[in-house]
């Protein structure tokens, strides 16, 4: 579909050629995660909040380590405590950590490769970045001690997004993982992290930044900046403005490094070794958000590798046969209860009470019909899906939480083939 849009003939033809040469373009929806991950070095898991992104990313990483024999890193943002424990991440933070083979053995598998895990600590990553870019020890210490910096590194809008991509770049360029699976932070807008490197570069090259770092005395005589300063002084107060200026003067010394780095991060994301996996449930609101995200990826010429539909209700809820059985159980509950009573009473006389059996039959039938409404709604959502990538995987609703390698493998197997 994307290739046949009008007005982009030249590019589309080129793309088609490239794909043919690579010889690895399965028809929409027919590819496997197995094949996708075997061909990529970076997988970015993204999508709306609350859909199981972190778990899905971890499951994909576990599978790649077990099945491909690769050295895999899962870089996770905010895992549930039990999952963090299972990955050996409790209290470890930014440092990459190997998940011990014993953990795999306990889950009944023998990994051919290695699984490493790390958690993203925004503050720690920012500090590391400053240490990396600061021109000298004094600037470094001044920045780290600056009250604005301390606020920004912890709370800077989108600082999470930027730092996640920055960490990814750093790890990718400095280590030897075959595959890095990144979980993206929950953001207001799922797209924020894609723009973060560019925004950071824009920020540092902006004219306003230059205004802010003009020495105080020349501000008041400079015709261009005078009105800005008069009003800014009045709103923010001179002292705060001075704090801001000082901070940016310090930051300015790292300008080149930052911009260059931001551009490299952007290039890495659009590199052909990188793919994006969009995770969603089949609920209307998250799915619309996921679809929008998938469209945006394509528009930005980033590689949409897969859509994973998570927590999908089981197929047996959609059968027409089930509904008629449930209706019959409801309508004939009294009659059925009487006929079933002797069989139940054989197990335990107390269970033979017909009113009680009738109540159970009615509850069971109602519950089926209730869940069927939701399951049919999911089916409708699924068939209206406008974007179909190479891999379209469905993960059933697990009735229990996934918090260890056994659970991750169980999920992973669902998305693998």
């Amino acid at each position, binding site marked *: 579909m994307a290739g046949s849009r009008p007005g982009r003939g030249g590019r589309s033809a080129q793309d088609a050629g490239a794909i043919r040469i690579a010889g690895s373009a399965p028809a929409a929806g027919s590819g496997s995660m197995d094949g996708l991950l075997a061909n990529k070095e970076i997988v970015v898991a993204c999508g709306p909040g609350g859909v199981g992104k972190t778990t899905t990313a971890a499951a994909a990483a576990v599978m790649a380590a077990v099945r491909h024999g690769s050295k895999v890193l899962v870089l996770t943002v905010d895992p549930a405590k039990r999952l963090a424990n299972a990955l050996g991440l409790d209290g470890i933070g930014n440092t990459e950590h190997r998940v011990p083979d014993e953990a795999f053995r306990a889950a009944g598998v023998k990994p051919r490769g290695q699984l490493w895990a790390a958690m993203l600590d925004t503050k720690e990553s920012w500090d590391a970045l400053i240490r990396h870019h600061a021109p000298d020890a004094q600037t470094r210490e001044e920045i780290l001690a600056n009250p604005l910096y301390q606020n920004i590194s912890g709370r800077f809008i989108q600082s999470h997004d930027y730092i996640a991509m920055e960490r990814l770049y750093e790890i990718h360029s400095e280590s030897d993982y075959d595959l890095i699976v990144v979980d993206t932070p929950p953001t207001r807008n799922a797209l924020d992290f894609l723009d973060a490197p560019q925004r950071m570069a824009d920020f540092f090259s902006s004219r306003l930044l230059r205004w802010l770092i003009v020495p105080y005395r020349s501000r008041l005589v400079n015709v261009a900046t005078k009105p800005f300063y008069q009003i800014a002084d009045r709103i923010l107060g001179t002292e705060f403005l001075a704090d801001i200026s000082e901070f940016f003067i310090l930051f300015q010394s790292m300008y080149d490094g930052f911009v260059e780095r931001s551009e490299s991060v952007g290039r890495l994301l659009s590199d052909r070794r990188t793919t994006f996996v969009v995770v969603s449930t089949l609920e209307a609101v998250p799915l619309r958000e996921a679809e929008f995200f998938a469209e945006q990826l394509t528009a930005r010429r980033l590689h949409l590798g897969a859509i994973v539909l998570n927590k999908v209700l089981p197929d047996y809820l959609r059968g027409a046969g089930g509904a008629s059985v449930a209706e019959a159980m409801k309508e004939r509950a009294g009659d059925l209860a009487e006929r079933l009573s002797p069989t139940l009473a054989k197990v335990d006389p107390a269970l033979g009470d017909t009113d009680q059996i009738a109540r159970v039959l009615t*509850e069971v039938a109602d519950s089926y019909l209730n869940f069927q409404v939701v399951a049919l709604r999911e089916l409708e959502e699924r068939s209206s899906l406008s974007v179909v990538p190479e891999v379209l995987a469905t993960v059933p609703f697990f009735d229990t939480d996934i918090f260890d390698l056994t659970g991750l493998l169980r999920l992973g197997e669902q998305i693998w083939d």
Partner: protein
Amino acid sequence: MTALLDLKLVFVTGKGGVGKTTVASAMALLASLQGKRVLICEVDAKGDVAGFYEAPPTVFKEREVLPGLFAMTMDTEASLREYLKLQLRIPVVGRIGPLAKAFDFVATAAPGVREILTVGKLCYEVRERNYDLVVVDAPASGHIVGQLAAPQAINNLVKVGLIRSQTDWMLDILSDPASTGLVAVCTPEEMPVTETIELADRVSKETTVTLSAVVVNRVLPELFGRQEEEVFDVLGSGEALGRLNELVGADAGPVLDAARLAVTMRRTRSTHLDRLRASIGGATPMLYLPFLFTRSHGLRTTRQVAASLGEELGY
């Protein structure tokens, strides 16, 4: 403690995907049905609130979407313009254009400035008594603390200037438990519960706002009492299942499987609920909203949720 709907300003937050906007929309609707004049303000500009009322997209300028119920979307730049016009009487209005751009830039860099414009606008509506209740579809739990703590943070960072002079009255409104409250929405699942517990802790340590209620959304119905569950277990296997299949003339297996799924799901979820109750249930009222087995979302669903919320609040 002041009854939830008698507060003046309620921030509704929660982890992504738990139904934060649903609950905020339902709460605002419920209050308006009680005869209050209500403003609902969407801070995450995703355009969801309009959908919950089946109204046209909301903008910064509030619009009456249902009788007594007004909706708006936060826009920090528009908020700045309004603020400058109303509060500071900045002489040359023509300069506000580039200034807003400059401000946007500073706001991106200087933490708290964007937040203060949001909180400031909301507190302003409360101070001017334009509404009986302002309901905020606030940022997700990861961001709400920064938002609520902004006036205090500004007070610490900015020693003088007009912004500084504005934060004191905002803090008065935010710190008064009879005026302002935070509602945390969660579902009975592992991560949302954990996040809610952490949020409760951070809110009390880092902000002056009171956590007024925790809303547990999508609670599954309890299907069976204890002995009924035994009946169900026996029915689901062996001779009893064979007899049932025979009687209904088809395979009843899937129907029983669905009930088993519902029972297990509820059981898994109840362990998380217990954890939530043990952690904050004593200090904070907990409200329970049922899982909705409906086909659509929109005004009809919002009304249903509002009715459930009304029952929980004793209306």
